């Protein structure tokens, strides 16, 4: 064998080189510095999470009671007295409307991709969803304005209203649900679905009996992530719903606008009023509570799915 001949030719042993202890010591020192810097980066990065919560609670704690949540804002400037009930009710309106639009669309398109989609359609739609997620929310706001709110030209002429705001938020929510549904279905072991189909089930039966059950955790994750995202949105609502200090009388046209927590915070912090700033922080605590509660739900679903499926 050629290789063996080569080896035998080089019989002389390799020269030994000395151990450079100083160098190794220096290297360990550098590694220590790297650890220190990485830890510092993490501490500084994690700092706002705690400081934001701390600051909001420290400033807003006196309003963190049931009355604040259960009464409408009153007084002058509006909100100086009373609570944030308008915003909480408004958020419910917006989330419900957005979900009615986005949940069927997102799940439907996710199902199509994994049941009927060809590879190229899938790649294309996936990219499309990712692009939609990347579009800045203020741009969605302008789109929503021209599609739903404007009273001139083409569009639905809903005015500044819960329906216009909710559907715009639905636009933002749809790609999130679609992506996560597709991901959840793709994660089902392929034997499951093919097994059902091989037994003569139609794809509709396979969906009912296998897919929905196996992908339920992932689909719920998508919906909750979507809700978590839209209840924090402010920019899209600026041009589609704005704000209402009272209760809505409908969901379109005059009186159709609703309050919204993120919007309330945004408006209060703009006012040159100390009390409104404090209330903005108290409202921030409420908003963060909603978001972290959803977050907790998400993690619970993830945990349960991993454990039982």
């Amino acid at each position: 064998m050629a290789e063996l001949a080569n080896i035998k030719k080089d019989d002389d042993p390799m020269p030994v080189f000395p151990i450079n202890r100083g160098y190794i010591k220096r290297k360990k020192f550098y590694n220590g510095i790297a650890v220190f810097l990485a830890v510092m980066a993490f501490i500084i990065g994690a700092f706002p999470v705690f400081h934001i919560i701390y600051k909001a609670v420290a400033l807003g704690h006196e309003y963190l009671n049931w009355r604040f949540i259960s009464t409408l804002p009153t007084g002058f400037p509006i909100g100086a007295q009373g609570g944030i009930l308008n915003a909480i009710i408004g958020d419910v309106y917006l989330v419900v409307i957005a979900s009615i639009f986005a949940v069927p669309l997102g799940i439907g398109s996710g199902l199509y991709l994994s049941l009927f989609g060809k590879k190229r359609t899938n790649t294309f739609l996936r990219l499309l969803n990712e692009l939609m997620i990347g579009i800045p929310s203020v741009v969605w706001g302008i789109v929503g304005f021209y599609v739903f709110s404007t009273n001139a030209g083409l569009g639905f002429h809903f005015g500044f209203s819960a329906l216009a705001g909710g559907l715009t938020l639905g636009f933002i929510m749809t790609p999130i649900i679609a992506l996560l549904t597709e991901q959840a279905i793709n994660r089902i072991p392929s034997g499951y679905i093919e097994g059902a189909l091989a037994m003569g089930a139609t794809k509709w039966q396979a969906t009912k009996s296998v897919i929905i059950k196996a992908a339920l955790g992932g689909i719920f994750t998508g919906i909750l992530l979507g809700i978590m995202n839209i209840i924090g949105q402010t920019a899209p609502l600026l041009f589609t719903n704005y704000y209402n200090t009272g209760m809505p009388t409908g969901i379109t046209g005059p009186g159709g606008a609703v309050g919204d927590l993120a919007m309330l915070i945004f408006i209060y912090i703009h006012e040159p009023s100390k009390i409104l700033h404090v209330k903005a922080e108290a409202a921030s605590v409420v908003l963060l509570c909603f978001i972290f509660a959803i977050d907790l739900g998400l993690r619970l679903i993830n945990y349960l799915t991993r454990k039982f499926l």
Partner: protein
Amino acid sequence: MFNLKYKDDLYKFILSIFVLSVISVFLIAVAVILFYSYPAIIRYGFSFLWVKEWNPPKEVFGALTFLAGTFMVTFLALLFAIPFSFGIGIFLQEYCPLFLRGIFTVIIEMLAGIPSVVFGVWGVLTIVPWLRESVEPFFDRHFSSIPFLKVEENIGYGILAASIVVAFMILPIISSITKDSLESVPKIAKDGALAMGATRLDVIKDVSLPYALNGIYGGIILGFGRAVGETIAVVLLIGNQAIVPKSLFSVGYTISAVLANTFTFAVISPIYASAEVELALILLAVSLIINIVGRNILNKVIGGRFNRSQFGGG
């Protein structure tokens, strides 16, 4: 038999309507922005991009001021966020003890879940006073001769305040993608280096980073996309004055902030509205390009796995 097939055809038909609706949401968004910006594009052409003056009553619209502000905030935010994200990703994946990695990752993901407006309020009540009372006086005393570090008005609001807060907002995106990219480095390759007597730092430098670098670029690109479009926190912090910022401490204006502040008034005049939609078109185009490039890179490196830190709180 016919019946079964017929049912599946119906099912497919219904689902394809959903798919077409999703596609049409995207097309509507692009079409609306193009349609309403068209008058301004025709009227102002490319001069829109380099004219400084933005004067609605005189119908003179140039976006240079806002482009400059957007660029500065984005650039500075990335400058602040990249080294920290890098450190966080490396910390979580390479140095952090296993039993703490889960909880620490959750903390960074929580940062991603905090809404933009809450960040903005935090900036107004924490970062702005800190800049006004500590940082700006310090720079004013020691660096006032350097134009880029000159403190013009000691108010705390401005480019720097906005950049710091936006940096925190894009931190989770970049650091979680850095972490995922490092996670995708084959363990056996790292073991090979360790078995030769390499330190952790050697392994990171010579094995992990070369593998993970593309993914990290992808993360930076996505972070860039997020920073460019960030609106509410910036509106609250940047000072909202249409001047081209010359210093780190100047006030300024970004495209997104102009839209948030003035679009509702602009719709009264068609050409004013059109100019504003053209601003949105710039944001849209940048975000589409950025995401096509960034996703392509990420799909190759971490298989398009979707990380939840990539959806922000708006």
